[in-house]
């Protein structure tokens, strides 16, 4: 019970830090702490496979991608927030978020407090989860697979568009000089 309080406190404190800190790199490091604390919570709630998947997918893949982009875009720059265009944006945002929290807590209060029984011995193992995913939830699994394929295709298209524009501009910029060079070669060959 004490463990739940401790790990939950670490997770919430790291989440507040992600939002409050100025530099994106510090934000990313705090997000990694948040993700690891959540993985420990998953482990306590008998979701062993998901705890491992959380560490591998989030801390291993997603955060590395984030750190790559952060180092690519913000290396050696002073981080400063741009001035706000919409006035009072922060106050609206804070009020609405507190409202979200209150509504969710009210919903949580209706959840009931039945005594907790011991889970079936296999709950949360890879075999159990695999039977659920390939059995009843197979349609969802197919949909997520198609979505991942679409996302990877979308990333390819986005990157190719930028590069295609740049090469087109380069070709347009360099085309006259090539023609001039060809004329010069022809002019040099005819006298």
């Amino acid at each position, binding site marked *: 019970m004490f463990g739940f309080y401790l790990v939950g406190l670490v997770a919430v404190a790291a989440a507040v830090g992600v939002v409050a800190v100025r530099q994106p790199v510090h934000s990313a490091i705090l997000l990694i702490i948040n993700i690891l604390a959540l993985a420990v919570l998953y482990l306590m709630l008998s979701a062993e496979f998901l705890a491992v998947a959380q560490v591998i997918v989030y801390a291993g893949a997603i955060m590395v991608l984030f750190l790559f982009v952060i180092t*690519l875009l913000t290396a050696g720059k002073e981080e400063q927030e741009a001035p706000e265009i919409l006035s009072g944006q922060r106050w609206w945002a*804070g009020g609405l978020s507190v409202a979200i929290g209150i509504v969710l807590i009210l919903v949580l209060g209706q*959840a009931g407090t039945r005594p907790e*029984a011991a889970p079936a011995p296999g709950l949360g193992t890879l075999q159990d989860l695999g039977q659920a995913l390939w059995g009843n939830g197979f349609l969802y699994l197919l949909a997520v697979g198609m979505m991942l394929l679409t996302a990877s295709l979308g990333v390819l298209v986005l990157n190719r568009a930028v590069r295609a524009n740049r090469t087109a501009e380069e070709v347009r910029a360099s085309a006259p000089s090539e023609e001039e060079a060809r004329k010069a070669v022809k002019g040099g060959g005819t006298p």
Partner: protein
Amino acid sequence: MTVTTWAVAVAVAVAVAIFAVGAIGVLTRRNPLIMFMAAEMMWNAAALAFIAYARHYHAVSGQAMAFLIIATAAAEVGIGLAIIVSVYHRRHRLNIDEVSRLRG
């Protein structure tokens, strides 16, 4: 380990708190990278709520949903970071208002 009902309630409360903090981050920060990280925390909070209720009702389908949430978040990060990088290549500023005039 032995888990009481109160422990599951604490886990759901942590999920609620992280979701609200993530929403505050998405709405107030103006750096698109930090906004994305806050959105990631909101995905994680939803997954944590699914897992806590899966433990409460002894239903593995909640854990299956959490697995699908992790996969969806991975796809979202890939496409979102690609959009951020390509906008940055054109405007050279990390400000979310640069994207407000985005057009296909």
